[in-house]
């Protein structure tokens, strides 16, 4: 399992760091490896940080694809591809038993139930040759769909997701009779929650917004942020701050990074 979930992105690098961390003094090789991974983590970290900033950005962040297609360069979509899906193996995987820790057999036998990341399930899934079948995660099943249809506002989508909409759209890649219902529920949920996202993003000025965003899906958080930038822009104009020149956040961050890197 460990190996199947190995790198490709930030979470991969973090896992790698964890694996290497327990035995730091075994030799210089591990240390350099660890060092490399640390560098990678820090780089990804800085990418993530600049992703979250509201104003000037060093590049144009790519938004999540949301629909059936992922955006290759979107960080959200990369993280999304690591979401685990419950799958059932439909044909024997010879000599891959070591990946499945719960059994001691040499092969992964037909009918095994395990969890695979989305990117791998998508790769292995084929309509004609049944390699594996994907089961729906709980949030997309009948029971939860009823909840979403009743009142989407009460659900904590961050806890259930945080990629509720994106993952739901990705689930449409796997054939299931429930697909039309899932698509319908996704849309209805978004529409039902729209008003609250809009009102909170347009009214929360100069206050702590963490309570407002903690229940939002990652996609809704992006919306919240763009709503806030509209509001903040208008308010700072009204207070007459728009005419003042300020240092670009790029310059400020560069100075900070220089200071942080100084002692090394």
């Amino acid at each position: 399992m460990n190996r199947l979930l190995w790198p490709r992105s930030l979470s991969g690098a973090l896992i790698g760091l964890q694996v290497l961390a327990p035995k730091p003094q075994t030799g210089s090789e591990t240390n350099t490896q660890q060092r490399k991974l640390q560098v990678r983590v820090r780089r990804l970290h800085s990418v993530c940080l600049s992703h979250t900033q509201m104003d000037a950005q060093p590049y144009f962040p790519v938004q999540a694809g949301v629909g059936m297609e992922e955006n290759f360069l979107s960080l959200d979509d990369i993280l999304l591809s690591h979401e685990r899906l419950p799958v059932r193996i439909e044909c024997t995987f010879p000599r891959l038993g070591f990946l499945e820790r719960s059994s001691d057999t040499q092969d992964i036998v037909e009918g095994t139930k395990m969890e695979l990341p989305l990117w791998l399930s998508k790769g292995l899934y084929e309509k004609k040759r049944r390699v594996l079948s994907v089961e729906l995660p709980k949030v997309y099943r009948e029971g939860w769909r009823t909840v979403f249809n009743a009142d989407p506002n009460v659900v904590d989508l961050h806890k259930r997701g945080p990629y509720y909409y994106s993952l739901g759209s990705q689930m449409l890649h796997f054939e299931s009779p429930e697909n039309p219902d899932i698509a319908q529920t996704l849309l209805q949920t978004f529409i039902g929650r729209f008003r609250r996202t809009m009102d909170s993003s347009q009214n929360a000025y100069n206050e702590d917004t963490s309570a407002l965003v903690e229940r939002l899906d990652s996609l809704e958080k992006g919306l919240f942020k763009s709503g806030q930038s509209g509001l903040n822009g208008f308010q700072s104009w009204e207070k007459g701050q728009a005419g003042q020149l300020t240092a670009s956040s790029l310059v400020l961050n560069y100075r900070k990074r220089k200071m942080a890197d100084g002692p090394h």
Partner: protein
Amino acid sequence: MDPAEVEFLSEKEIVKIIPNFSLDKIYLIGGDLGPFNPGLPVEVPVWLALNLKQRQKCRIVPPEWMDVEKLEEIRELERKEGTFAPVPSPYYMELTKLLLNHASDNIPKADEIRTLVKDIWDTRIAKLRLSADSFINQQEAHAKLDNLTLMEINTIRSFFLDSLNFMYKLRSNMQPASSKGKAMDY
């Protein structure tokens, strides 16, 4: 778009000033201005009016609509109507702010005007949000919004466009066959 850019656009509006100096007609790319004679009202763009005012070379005559009674009427109309009522100027918010900040001594009852305009703005923004919500709720494809000003559109633009984009994608999920051929922009 930045609110400052909207403000910049609003500075092309024409106001009347009463200069206290004399100058011949001046010829600019945007049109001819003047001639300026002390005591004789002349029409100039806002940016020039503010500049002259800051150098105490003129007195600004407030636009006709910048008047407590007229604004009260507009406010009542705005509250009564379900749709957006016509505004006195496409840049009413920006002009109010510019003129009141720089030339409040030339405008009678400046404070009242400030509150009235803010009231009108708040009512309209609330309406805008309401109509955006019903637009999303009914899954409409297009809407006609008359009498909206640039500044009002500007506050909600990025949020609304992003939401519509997401909604479009979630909607195209429902017809998987038709969404296949569409390539992404990136």
